Each structure stands twice: as C-alpha cells, then as structure tokens.
C-alpha cells in the first residue's frame, strides 16, 4: 500500500503536467503575442496603481 500511494500521486501530477507541456508548447508558438497580452492586462492594474499610489508617480 505504501508503495502504491506515491505512484498514484506522481501519476496524477504527471498527467496534469503532460497537459501543461502541450499547453506550454502552444503558448511558445505565439510567445511574443501572448506575452504582450499580459502587458495589456496589466495596464488595467497599472491605471489603478497610478491613481492610488504616489512614490512611483514621483519618478514620472
């Protein structure tokens, strides 16, 4: 029993990881665009940040 449980846990993680490998492979095919999208999303947060904070703005 003690030997079966680690195998099951690893198998479950590996199964999820194999899906992640495929997903990662797809992501990297469009990596620059996908990465730039992250910047666009962050700009929303950035707006909030710039309206609520001061020290960073002082450097602008």
């Amino acid at each position, binding site marked *: 029993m*003690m*030997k079966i*449980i*680690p*195998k099951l*846990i*690893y*198998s479950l*993680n*590996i199964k*999820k*990881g*194999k899906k*992640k*490998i495929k997903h*990662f*492979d797809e*992501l*990297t*095919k*469009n*990596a*620059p665009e*996908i*990465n*730039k999208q*992250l*910047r666009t999303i*962050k700009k929303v*947060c*950035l707006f*909030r*940040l*710039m309206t*609520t*904070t001061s*020290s*960073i703005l002082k*450097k*602008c």
Partner: protein
Amino acid sequence: MPFSTYDDYIEYIEKMLTGEEGLITNDPIIHYALTSGSVDNPKKIPVSEDTVKLYREYATQYSFAVISEALGEKWKKGRGLNLMEVKFETLPNGLFAGSISGRGVYSIKNLLFLMFTSPKEVVFPTEIMDSKYIHLRYALIEKSLSYIVSAFMTGVCDLMKYLEANWEMIVSDIENGTINEDIKIPDDVRKTLLAKIKPDPKRAAALRAAFQKGFDDPIIPRIWPEFAFVHAIGSGGFSVYTDKMRHYLGDIPIYFSVYAASESIMAICSEMESQAFVLIPDSAFYEFIPANQEEETNETLTMDQLETGKDYEIVITNTSGFYRYRIKDVVRVVGWYNKCPKIQFVYRLNQMVSIAGEKTTEDCISWSVREFVKEAKCELVDYSVYADIGVSPGRYVIFMETEKRLAKDQHHEYRRIIEEKLGIANPSIGAKVKSGVLSPSDITFVQEETYALYRDLMIMRGISGNQLKPVRVIDTLVKENFFFALADKES
C-alpha cells in the same frame, strides 16, 4: 511608467502587512516571500494566488512530466528526499512569510509524507537542529528512494559530504534504532522520532558494505538502486556544486529546475540535463535592457526583439503587483524554443564588483577561477571575490577553498595565475593594474569546510537552507569577518 525596484513598494507593503488590501494589486495576496538578499533585513515580496498557481503548475506538474517523459520506466516513482523546509513566520495580517519554495511544500503538506521520506519534524522545524542527519537517517532506510529534490544544488551537495563524513554513525543508528547523542535535536523531537524508529540491521549491513567500498565510485546508485534523478537549481553560480554532485551520482541525470525569483517563476527547463531555461510566456510580462547599454533609458525590448548570444537585464511586470520591476538579473539568450527565448542566468547587477569602474561580473570571476583550477591542477570546493580597498590602490582578492591544501611556497605562482586569468576575463582589470589604477590581484585560500561552515552558521542564525545561495561576493562585514578569520595561514 518608470522602472521600479523593491524600495518603491516598501511603503505599500508595510501597510499591506497590517491588513490593507488593494494597494498594488487587487489580486489576493496569500503569502509574503522572504528573500535571501539581505541577512539583516530580508525583503517581503507579496505573492498572489496566481503566482503560487504558476509555481505549482510549472515547478511541480510540468517539471515532473518532463522528467517522466525523459526517464520512462527508469523512474519507479517511489518516495523522494525533499530538502526544502517550511520555516514561516506569521505576519500581523495573519498571512505567512517564508521562502517561496517552502510555500510550495506547504501547499502539499497533507501529501508530504506519502511522497517524501523526511519526517515532519525536519520539514516544519520549530528549532535549529541537525537537519542533515535527520534527512539522511530516514532516506537511507528507504532502499527504493527515487530522487532528491532541493531548492539549490548546494543543499544536496552538503548532504552528500555530510554522509561521506558521518556514515558510520548513521549506519550504527539504523542498526540499533537509535539517534546518536551528539546529534543536536530538541528533546521533544528526539523523543517523538525515537518512538517511531525501529532497528533495521539488514538495511544497516547492506549500507555498511556499500560505504566500506569507499566513495571513489558513485555512491548514490549503490545505496539507492532505484534512484533516478536530482531536481535542483544547479547551473550558473551553483555549477561547482553540480560538478561535485556528478561524483556521487555517476550517470544519474539532473533536472535543473527553474529560473525563478521570489517575484516570479520566469523560465523552466524543457529537457532533462539542459541548463537552458525557456521563458514562461504567461507568467510575467518581460522587458529587456541590453546589458552593454551605457546610457540609462526607459526603453526596452520585448522577447521577439532579442538576439541569440546577447546579454540583457530582465525587467518584469508580475502577477503579484510589481510593475516594470528590475530584479537586477542579467540573462543570456542561448537559443529558442518555438518563438520563445531560451536563457541562462549570467550575473546579478548588484553582485558586480567595481573598484575603479572596471565592472567585474560573477561570470568573469567564475571563468577566472575555473581556469585557475585547471592550471594549478587542484580541485575546487568554492570561491568568492573581495574588493580590497584597504590597500591603495584597491585590488581584487579571490578567496578559494580547495579539496586539498596547496603548497605554500607556490603562493606567488598562484597569484600570477589568478592575476592573468582576471585580466583575460575582464581586460579592464588587466589594463588598470598595468596603469597602476589597481594593485595586482591576490588569492587567499581558506581552511577546509569554510564554505559549508558559513552555510551552517547562516542556518543557525535562522536563514532557511532553501534560500542559501553561494557567497560570490564578500560584501558585508559579517562575510568579511568570517572569511578573513578562516584564511588558511599554511597555504
């Protein structure tokens, strides 16, 4: 938006620690990563749920799938030895602060003892103890140990050195079901552990037979026949420890894990044994500043504008509220995975040594030391650089620990070699020595076990072993006092 550094966020982080929310991000912050950066005042980096998820998906699931595909049936998927400990402090806002790797371990706390051999007393330490002994004591019982996972290769290497020096004591304890009285463990922990330990003379005899044959041949496959891999950060500044580990591992492969910081998991190894890391496009927004750029500018490059072979400072906008954040790392583009750059860490900008404007990087020092070792025909343990401005003009002093003491009467020759190598690695040093702007470089050998002792000392001062990186620059009074005190007067 200008670049930012940690100092720009301190004011907000201080408020967040007392419970204020939505200051730098509206994403929920669930942890604060204590960085290893400074001994006296470690940074507290906010970590969002998204960042923890990215760590889990890439550092655990993705990496184990890569290893499984590479090793196939060679990995029997037995329990592993986990050297990452969870040492958290509770903050006023009720959240934990501790290493980011510890957070990963904490998130699987209920599965931990099904997956790993070490008892919870050492994974969640409440006091300082001889953790190397406890990790080994339990891992050695497990004949079918599958792998070792550690944040850094230094931890794995220290463990194997400890084994080499102390195997007789550990084997005797396994044989008799005891814990040697010299081992530093709190009394209650000793009592708890002893209650669960049984004598195992059969395993002890097999181990003793293996150790008695010596450590010249790789020991790991002889004591753990199902051992399949090591999972640890071991490239760049850690490579001296990786080289040492090869001696214990033989043909057993290494998975070099991730390129990450407390702020973000930025890149991952897509292959076993590869020391090139593929940038993770959905983990952070990356910008790059050419490393040789003289002028300070706000302009940056995106990943599609990078060139193979060139060095860049990396700037990230992460998933935890840091914007255009300079983590101060310089990376080199070494290839491509589809349209994504493969990178290697080259040096940290704040670990650069410059006495008279010559800007010497970790990379230069590392190359010089490796070349020194080849020419002086010695075996390296570890090294650091010290900018000695106590003499006029200033000079570079390389501190070095070697496996065997070098001949004292050859010291002038060793000085010549290191001077020559530093001058090649950074021609600015050579030119400045020639023109008298710098004094000739020197080399100081330290006593046996100096670097291991330094790490032990840091652990005793409360630094998590998961966070201890090699000392590449002697840049604090603590380091200065320590390494100068352990200079080997006989070499």
